[in-house]
């Protein structure tokens, strides 16, 4: 991973955690709110990333799941330039839900 991408990763993990905290915080899972939460989280994360001004295209995905004991498994696979492109995944949880956010950065320059 290039030095540029490492910067993004560190900023990413920190900003993503902050975004999730600000949007969901200590709230309980709510069927009526979850749609808004996921949309807010991805938008805020993307805004923070774009502000970095680096020559990258970004994809941000977010999954919020209620804690009921169900099993959940996720996998990502990428076909890209391993020297320039990279990703970062943040797992967050509170008492009633899990939140998994993935950021993918693809170099344009």
């Amino acid at each position, binding site marked *: 991973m290039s030095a540029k991408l490492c910067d993004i990763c560190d900023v990413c993990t920190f900003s993503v955690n902050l975004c999730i905290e600000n949007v969901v915080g200590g709230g309980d*899972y709510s*069927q009526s709110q*979850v*749609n808004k*939460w*996921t*949309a807010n*989280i*991805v*938008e805020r*994360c*993307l805004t923070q*990333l*774009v502000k970095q001004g680096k020559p990258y*295209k*970004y*994809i*941000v*995905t*977010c*999954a*919020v*799941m*209620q*804690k*009921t*004991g*169900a*099993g*959940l*498994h*996720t*996998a*990502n*696979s*990428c*076909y*890209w*330039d391993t020297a320039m*492109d990279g*990703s970062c995944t943040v797992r967050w949880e509170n008492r009633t839900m899990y939140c998994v956010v*993935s950021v*993918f950065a*693809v170099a344009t320059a």
Partner: protein
Amino acid sequence: MDYQIEEEAGFVVEDVSKIIKESVEATIGGNAYQHNRVNQWTTSIVEQCLSQLSKLGKPYKYILTCVIMQKNGAGMQTASTCFWDNSTDGSCAVRWENKSVYCIVSVFGLAI
């Protein structure tokens, strides 16, 4: 006026969607959710899809995500947002289910 028939070089959602559906059917099919197999399933689905997509021979980078969830009444919501070139890049998401499993696969294609 001269018309040129060009091969579709863009991100074609129907082709990608077909690849995803075939891969999920072939991997999970009618099987019930099994904790010790689900790891293999997600890996197999993304790898199969990726290899079919690269065979399309288009000048694209691809990102695939696969989520498998056991059906037990839990609520789940997913969202994604992209900062890219709207004229050349595209995405496709497929939601599949059987009696005990939900599977959501998303493919993002970015033009080189």
